[in-house]
């Protein structure tokens, strides 16, 4: 299944719910475009929710790294939520688990951004 991305906002934080495969071509491109679009409109605190996806090829992993780096370079944060075991294993194999901030549940992820997320308010 091709990657689908749903966007939610909690306060200043954008959560992208990912469903499908993040692979070379469409999947990676979509993720790149979506994160870049958020950065362009000024968003800086982004959570990628992996609950609906467990297929990530090396191009998909590369895209995660690129978006992580780009976000950081612009003073933002890209955090990973609810990694399925399969993706966690891939990040272990590639020794990347330490590179990303990862969370098991959404509230922890939201609160980790500090004051921005303390008073969650539904937007859009």
């Amino acid at each position: 299944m091709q990657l689908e991305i749903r966007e939610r906002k909690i306060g200043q934080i954008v959560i992208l719910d990912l469903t499908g495969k993040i692979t070379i071509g469409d999947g990676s491109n979509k993720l790149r475009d979506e994160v870049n679009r958020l950065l362009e409109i000024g968003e800086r605190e982004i959570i990628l929710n992996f609950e609906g996806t467990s297929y990530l090829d090396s191009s998909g992993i590369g895209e995660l790294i690129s978006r992580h780096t780009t976000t950081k370079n612009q003073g933002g944060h890209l955090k990973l939520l609810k990694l399925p075991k399969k993706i966690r294993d891939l990040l272990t194999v590639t020794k990347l688990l330490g590179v990303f901030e990862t969370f098991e549940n959404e509230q922890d992820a939201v609160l980790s951004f500090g004051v921005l997320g303390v008073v969650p308010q539904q937007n859009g």
Partner: protein
Amino acid sequence: MMQAEKVVEITIASSLELIDIITLTADHFAKLSGFDEEELYRINLAVRESVANAIEHGNKYNAEKNVEARFGLTELRLSVSIRDHGAGFDPETLPDPLDPENLLNPAGRGILYMRSFMDQVDLVRHPEGGMQITMVKNRPAPSSPPPAPETSSGGEGK
């Protein structure tokens, strides 16, 4: 009953949207081999990486160049060879993606995937040009479903 190697060969044009044809075949073979769902996933990923490399680095998306896949299943192992028609490369010279200084490099993990998920990976230049990657995975010990035998009398083996 000793059985010969069961072989499937697939040739695709260099198009990312055709990769799935080879990974679907990998899934089918992996199932026939008796691998569990976890190993299916890993075999699928390793095969995807090798075909993606053949299209991207080998044939450089030239739709006139083909990628050739060969699946072979014996009682003991599943093998997958992927061949392209590009310039080839020397695997010895590749940077190590696990080296801390390469960790934030967005590329360079495909071959690591293959080596992690398959039991044996050989990367050689094909004598007639292009790169040929051969990956082998040993089949799980035949516990409940034995390696599918093939009858020659019309019935389906398994």
